C-alpha cells in the first residue's frame, strides 16, 4: 500500500478518534468533518470518484453542518458537570473492542481468498446516471419518497415547538 494511503488512513482515524473523545462537542463535530474528508479521499483512492464527491457534498456539506446546528441549538457546547462519558463507559469500550476483534478476525481469517489487484474500473457519470434511472430506478424512487418523508418529518418535529409550549 502506498504512503498516501497510510497517511489518509491516519487522518481519518485520528479524526474519528477525536470525534468521539473530545470534551467539547463542537470540536467533536469538527473532527467528524475531518474524518469525513479523509473518507472522501479514501473513496477517491478507490477510484470511486462520484462516491467521493458525493461524500464531500452530502456529509461534509450537509450532515456536519446539521450536527453543528444541532449542537448549537441544544447548548451542547457547554461542558456537563458530570463528565462527558456515561457512568459505565468501560463496558461500551469493551463491547466496541469486541466488535473490532470479531471483524478483524473475520477479515484476517479470510485474507487468503481475497483478491489482490484488479483492473481499474472506469465509471463515468453518464453510466451512473443511466444505472440510476435504468436498473436502480425503483431504489431511486423509494429514496426520493424517503427524503420527502424525512424532510416533512423534520419540519413537523421542528414546527411543533410553537404549539407544544403552553
Amino acid at each position: 500500500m502506498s504512503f498516501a494511503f497510510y497517511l489518509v488512513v491516519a487522518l481519518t482515524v485520528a479524526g474519528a478518534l477525536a470525534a468521539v473523545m473530545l470534551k467539547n462537542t463542537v470540536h467533536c463535530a469538527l473532527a467528524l468533518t475531518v474524518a469525513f474528508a479523509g473518507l472522501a479521499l479514501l473513496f477517491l483512492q478507490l477510484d470511486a470518484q462520484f462516491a467521493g464527491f458525493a461524500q464531500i457534498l452530502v456529509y461534509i456539506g450537509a450532515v456536519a453542518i446539521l450536527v453543528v446546528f444541532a449542537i448549537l441549538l441544544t447548548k451542547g457546547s457547554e461542558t456537563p458537570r458530570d463528565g462527558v462519558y456515561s457512568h459505565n463507559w468501560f463496558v461500551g469500550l469493551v463491547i466496541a473492542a469486541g466488535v473490532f476483534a470479531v471483524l478483524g478476525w473475520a477479515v484476517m481469517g479470510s485474507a487468503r481468498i481475497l483478491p489482490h489487484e484488479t483492473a481499474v474500473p472506469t465509471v463515468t457519470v453518464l453510466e451512473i446516471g443511466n444505472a440510476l434511472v435504468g436498473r436502480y430506478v425503483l431504489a431511486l424512487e423509494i429514496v426520493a419518497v424517503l427524503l420527502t418523508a424525512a424532510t416533512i418529518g423534520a419540519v413537523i418535529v421542528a414546527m411543533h415547538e410553537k404549539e407544544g409550549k403552553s
Partner: protein
Amino acid sequence: MHETISFTPQLMASPIAVIVWLIPALPIVAAGVASLLKQPKRKLSATLAIGAMCISFMLSLISFVHIVGEWMQGIAAREVVNITWIQIGTTNVDLGWVLDPLSAVMLVMVTFVGLLIFIYSTGYMKDDENYTRFFCFLSLFAGAMLGVVISNSILLLFMCWEIVGLTSYLLIGFWYQKPSAAAAAKKAFLTTRIGDVFFLLGIVWLFSQTGTLLFYNYGAGSMEAGALAGLLAQPAAWGLTAAGAIALLIFAGAAGKSGQFPLHVWLPDAMEGPTPVSALIHAATMVAAGVYLIARVYPLMAAGALAGGTTTALTVVTWVGAFTAVFAALIAVAQNDIKRILAYSTISQLGYMMAGLGMGGVAVGIFHLITHAFFKALLFLGAGSVIHGCHGEQDIRKMGGLKSDMPLTFLTYAIGMLALCGFPLLFSGFWSKDGILEAAEHWSVAKTPFYLLVFGALLTAFYMMRQVIYVFGGHWRGGKAAHESSTVMIAPLSFLAFFAIALGAIGTPAWPWFRAFLDGHAAAFNPHGFLEPGLPALMGISTVVVALGLFLGWRLYADRTPKPSQPDALEQIAPLPWGWLRDRLYVDELYGVTVIAFYRWWARVADWLDRRIWGGAVAGVVFAFALWARLNRFLDTNVVDGGFDKGCDELAVGGGLLSRVQSGRVQSYLRILALAVVLLAAFLIWSSMA
C-alpha cells in the same frame, strides 16, 4: 375278667336303628320351641317336654325290644349309622350313632327315669315363676344326654357332653338370684372343664393316631381291633402305650363329670339347684355319663390286657374309684343337709361304679349304674318330697317324725334306702354291689380295693340309717307342721320304688341276664349259679356288713335325735374326727389355698402386665405418634413454609434485580444489542471457519 365276644356291625342297619336319632332330637326340638315361649305358657312347655320325652321313651323301648330280639336269636347286634360331616382331603370328620345292648339299656333308663322326673317336676316346681325356663332346660339336658348315649362318633359325644355340662350349669344356677347358686354353677362348670380339657386332648390324640372319630365303622373304627393294635404299638411317655395314655386322658374327663376324687368338689355344691335337677342330673344321668363313657371306650381301656390280667388304665380307674367310694362315704357320715348326704352318697356310689368297671368289666359297672339310677333318683325325689312337705327346710336336725306325717314318702324312701345299702336279696342294690365286690375279690392286682369297698358298704348303711332316723324317726323338731306331697309327686316315687326292687332280678347269679345281654352271649336260668365257689361266702360277708352298719346307726341314733343346738351322737363320741368329716376333709380349702390362690396371683400378674407393659407399650406408641405429629408440624411451619416463603422472597429479589436491566436508557439497550451481535457474528464466523 370276663370274655368279650366281638360284635360285628350289621351291614344293613335296621329301620329302627335309622330312626334312633329321633330319640335325642325330639327333646332338643321341644327345648328349642319352649325357649321361644313366654313365661305364662307353663302348661305348654311342660307338655312339650313331657310329650317329647314320652315319644323318646317309646322309641327307646322299641329299640330295646329290637335289640333283645336280636340277642335272643343269638346275633350279637351292633348297628351303626355313620354320616360324614366334613371331608378334608383324606380325613373325614364323621358323626353317627350306634345301637347295641349298652346304648339300648342306657336309652331306656335315661328316658324312663327322665320321664318320671319330668312328671314329678310339674308338681315340685308348681309355685316357681320360671316354670317354662325350667322345662326348656330340662328338655335340652335330656336331649343332650341321650345324644351322649347313642353317639358313635367321639366328636359328637364330646359335643353332647359339653351341652350336658352347659345345661347342668344352667340348672344348678336356676335360682340365679341366690349368690350361692350362681357360685355353685360356676364351680361345677369349671371343675368339669378341667376334666374336659384332658378329655379333648384324648380325643385329638385318638383322632390323630387312628385317623377316625368313629367308634365302630365296620372294622375301621377306633374301638375295633385294627385301630387298637396300632395304638398299642405306639409308645407314649412313662412306659405307657398310646392306648394307655389316651385311656387315662379320657378317664380324666369322665372323672370330672362323675365326681371322682379330686374333681368331686362341685357335686355337693350342685345341690343348690332344684331337687328334680339333683335327681335327674346329679344322681341318675349326667354323673353316670362319665361311667358310660368309660364303658363305651372299654375296648381301648382294656387293650393289651392279657387273659386274666389288667391294663394300667383300668388299674388307675379302679384305685380312683375305690378311694373315692370310701372318701365320700366318710364325709357323708357327718353332714346335716338332707341333699348333701345324698350327694356324697352319689359320689361314693360312682366310685363303686368306676371300681366295678375297672375290675369287673362293662356289665358289672353298668349294672350298678342302672340300679343306682333308679334308687338314687327315688331317694332324691323322696328328699324333694320331704323338703316340699317341710316348707323348704333342708336341715335334717330340724325334721323328724315324718314317718307318720308323710307315710307314702317314708315307705318309698325306705325302699330306696335299703336298695342303696344293699339289703340282701330283695333289693337291686344288693345284687349290683355284690357283683362289684365279687369282681374286687378276684382282682389280680391287689385285694385292697375289696377291703375299701366293703368298708364303704358299712359306712353307706350307717349314714343312710342315720339320715332316715333323723328325718323320719323321733319327733317333729321343726317349725310348721309337715304334710304329705301331692299325687303327681308320689306316683313317680312308687314307680321308681318298684324298679328299685325288681331290677335286681336281672342281675342275680342264678340268672345273669344283664351281663349276658351286654356281653352278647346266651343266658340261662341256673339256680346252681349261687353255688359258685366263694359266692355264698361273699354274699354272707356283705349281708353281715350291711346289718352291722344298719345296727350301728340304729343304736346311735334311735331315740336320740338331737336338736340343732345339741351335738350329734357320733360327735359326742369322737368330736375331732367328726369335725374333719363335717368340714368335708378340707378339700375345698386346699383348693382355695393352692389352685385358686395361684390363679388370683396369676390374674394380678396379668393385670400388671396389661396395664404396665402392654398399656405402657400402647402409651409409648401414642407418645411416638404425638411426637411425630409435632415434628411434622414443626417441619411444616418452619422448613416447608419458611423455605417456600424464603424462595418467594428470593424470587422477588431476583425479579427486582432483573428488572434493572430494563433501565429505560437507550445506551444500555444498545450495548446489549451490540454484544449480542458480536457474539452471534463470532459464532457464525467460527462455525464457517471450522
